[in-house]
Every structure is written in structure tokens, then in C-alpha cells.
């Protein structure tokens, strides 16, 4: 255990930022599903009462959007999709069987795709959410516009929920990944296997060449 070498992947600010967004997402998804599925109406209870859920949901949505907005500017430059990423996406079968595809950097094709999917969903959700927000903004919009916003809001939220299921599953499936977002570190083996190019960059940054023993990075 003492020999385990770790690489810092996410700083404390990044982790806190991520979990604020994540907690908001869970609250929003549950209360949103409550309004979408009559059989799940009881889930409005996450905010106390149905009326409170209607009142609080949009405010939590704004917090989530601001949190996500901050994350977007942390990570967007890591998420340009390259030819390698396309190859990753088209080799999804290999990936699902536990294989690695390409010389992956900080993020693989799937993670980059998820990043842009989430970004798109967040934008649609915040805009449509404002249009349907009663009593503050909805009265300013014509009813046909509100109808479209309601449809888009539900539709996009469901896509995002499905996306987050994939996101969470991927983190649970690839062992050692949760640690990156909880403790901020990953094992060297994890980095070498899943993100070899990123691993080499980290090693170079730390001033080590192949074969040298890299210093433990980040706080334990």
C-alpha cells in the first residue's frame, strides 16, 4: 500500500464544484421526474411539499447551471474532439469489453462526447427553464412558446438523466475512477491504462523520464 503511487487529477476546488453540480442534479432530476411521471409525484417530497418543489426546483436549477458553467470553463479546452476520439467512439464494443482504444489523453472520446452532451443539455434546460418559470418569467412569453419550452425541458432533462446514468456507471465500472473525484488522485496504473498520453504528460511535468520513479503528486 505504501508503494502505491498517485497522480493528482482534480484539485479540491474542482471536486467541490463537481459535487455541488451533482447534488443539484439529483435534486432536480428527482423533482423533475415527479412532475413528469404522475406515479412518481411523491418524489416532489425531496423539497418538502409539491408546492415547495415547484418553487425551489428552478432556483436549484440556476445553482446547477452556474456550477456547470464554471466547470465548462475549467474543462472545455481538454474536450476538443480529435480523430482518435472518433475512433474511440466507433470502437465502443472494444471499450465495453474492457479494452483501451488509442493513445488517450486526459479524456477519452466517450468523456468528451459526454462533456458536449451535458453542455448542450444544460443550455437548453436553462433557457427553456426560464421560459416556463412561474410566476416570474413565464407570463412574459406567448403560450405556444411556453409549450415548446415545456416539451424541450422535459425532453432534454431525460436525455441528460440518461447521460448521467452512463456517466455514473462508467465511473463505477472503471475501478479507481471515483477516487479521482472524491480524493482527487488516481493510481499510476489507472492513468497508464486508461489515459496513457495524459500519464506521460504528467510524468514529463514532474520531470521524470520513462522508468524513473515519479514523486507522489498531490496530497494523500
Amino acid at each position: 500500500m505504501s508503494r502505491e503511487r498517485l497522480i493528482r487529477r482534480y484539485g479540491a476546488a474542482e471536486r467541490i464544484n463537481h459535487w455541488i453540480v451533482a447534488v443539484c442534479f439529483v435534486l432536480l432530476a428527482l423533482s423533475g421526474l415527479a412532475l413528469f411521471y404522475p406515479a412518481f409525484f411523491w418524489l416532489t417530497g425531496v423539497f418538502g411539499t409539491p408546492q415547495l418543489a415547484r418553487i425551489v426546483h428552478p432556483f436549484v436549477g440556476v445553482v446547477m447551471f452556474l456550477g456547470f458553467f464554471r466547470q465548462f470553463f475549467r474543462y472545455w479546452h481538454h474536450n476538443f474532439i480529435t480523430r482518435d476520439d472518433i475512433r474511440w467512439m466507433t470502437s465502443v464494443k472494444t471499450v465495453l469489453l474492457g479494452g483501451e482504444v488509442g493513445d488517450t489523453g486526459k479524456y477519452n472520446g466517450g468523456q468528451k462526447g459526454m462533456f458536449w452532451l451535458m453542455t448542450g443539455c444544460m443550455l437548453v434546460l436553462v433557457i427553456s427553464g426560464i421560459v416556463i418559470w412561474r410566476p416570474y418569467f413565464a407570463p412574459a412569453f406567448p403560450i405556444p412558446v411556453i409549450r415548446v419550452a415545456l416539451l424541450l425541458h422535459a425532453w432534454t432533462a431525460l436525455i441528460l438523466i440518461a447521460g448521467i446514468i452512463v456517466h455514473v456507471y462508467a465511473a463505477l465500472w472503471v475501478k479507481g475512477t471515483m477516487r479521482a473525484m472524491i480524493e482527487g488522485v488516481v493510481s499510476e496504473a489507472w492513468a497508464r491504462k486508461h489515459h496513457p498520453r495524459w500519464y506521460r504528460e504528467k510524468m514529463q511535468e514532474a520531470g521524470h523520464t520513462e522508468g524513473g520513479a515519479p514523486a507522489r503528486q498531490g496530497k494523500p
Partner: protein
Amino acid sequence: MSLQSQDILRRSASPTQPPIAREHKVEVAKLIDVTTCIGCKACQVACSEWNDLRDEVGENVGVYDNPADLTAQSWTVMRYSEVEENGKLEWLIRKDGCMHCAEPGCLKACPSPGAIIQYANGIVDFQSEHCIGCGYCISGCPFNVPRINAKDNKAYKCTLCSDRVTVGQEPACVKTCPTGAIRFGSKDDMKAYAADRVEELKTRGYAQAGLYDPEGVGGTHVMYVLHHADRPQLYHGLPEKPAISPVVRLWKGFLKPLATVGLAASVLFGFFHYIGVGPNRADETDHEEDKA
């Protein structure tokens, strides 16, 4: 607040059958004969009086319409339209309010169980204590009728005086109408009466006179006799073919089963993938051995 009711046809956001032991109840209807309405607004006053509503005293905006629009405190308003037909000015006056659709868009859109009820007699009623103030009913309504009260964030509209009808009385507006332009009874009786009125109007030069009971919403429990039934828009934009918006149908219909299948499939796929393929581990020791 809600009375024990065993004659409920539909209940908002409720997947199972509500109590329907008294489904034999006769469908009722209010018939508004626009051609004999004099625009006196007695119905507006009677509505406020019976339902104990107190709208703010507004301002005259230069036309007869007053209040200028439906509000949470004004469940019916007279709409005045000046049109030129057959070379003469016609002053068309329509009493606006909830149409009590057989297929209510408000009820379809409402996410709160029991906040909107459709009784076996056809009345669509808001149960305000269950209303959460989301305004979905406003989006669902093809007639732009429900209004949210700023004080309590709850939606309101005409109840067709469900309390009066329950005890065998006609709605307050019907009771008060001085010309008999508003009638109330079984829907069949009202249609028969309307047919007589339409016949008479046709003999008096209104060849396009007819009954407004739009099929797109399954018919309504508030119907109009119009002189120009071919052009209902003349009457302050009364929709020609009202129906629940296809956008609302998509949202409340098709999207639900699709989403259920999609979400369930992604969760099940994840579960069986984990069971089938097993976790994806990066083993530190493997690598150490490789190097050794």
C-alpha cells in the same frame, strides 16, 4: 375542501381509475346564445357574487370589455367585437370563460394528482388545494382560460358553478341572464334547443348560423349559438378548430413511454454489463510484473 365525489371521469396525474360509481349522471351543458346576448354583463356580476370573487376595480381601456381580460378573480368576461358583415356593422358579443371540454387540455397537462377533476356530468373543476402553481394547465388549454392568482400562485377558472349544479341548480350566470341568452340543462336538451335557434336564425338571413361544440376537444359543455358559425374567429378570436396542441400531446403522450423505456434500458444495460463483463481494473501489480 373537496367534497366526497363518486362520479369522477378523469383526475389529473392519476394513472388509475378514480371513483366512478355514479357514471350514469347526465351530461350537462351551458348554451350561450350569442345572438340574443345584449352584453349587459349581469352574468359577470352574478359570477363574482355567487363565487365570492373580488377582482380589483380596473380602468376603462376605451372599449366595452371590462375587465379587459379573464383573471383569477374574473372567471367570465364579455368580449365585444365590431365587424362588418353583409355591408353592415355587427356588434358581436361573446361571454368568454371555461368551455368545460370533454377532452380537457388543462387536465392532460396538469402534473398534480387531483388538482383538476372532470365529473361524469362533464364539469371540469380545479381543486385549488392540490394546485402547485406550475401553470401547465395554461399551456394545455386550447382556449386560453386558466389564470394564476398572484396572491397564492394557484390557477382559477369557471367551475360551471359545480356547487350549484350538484344540488340541482343552474349556474349563477344562467340564473341571472335577463334575456335568456344563457341556458343550462342536459347537453342533449341544449343541442335540441340550439337546433331550433339555428333554424330560426337561418330564416332571418344568417345562412351560416350554427352551434359551436368543437369536435377537436371532444365537444364542450359550454356551447355557443353563433350567427357566423363558419367563422368563429370573428367572436374575439374564438378558435375555429380548437384541439390540445400537438406539442402538449407529444410532451404528455409519446414522450413518456419513450423515456421510460430509455431510462430503464440504460439502467438495466449498466447492471447486466457489470454482471456480465465485470469491473474494469487497472492492476498495479500486473504492471510491476511486466517490468520485472
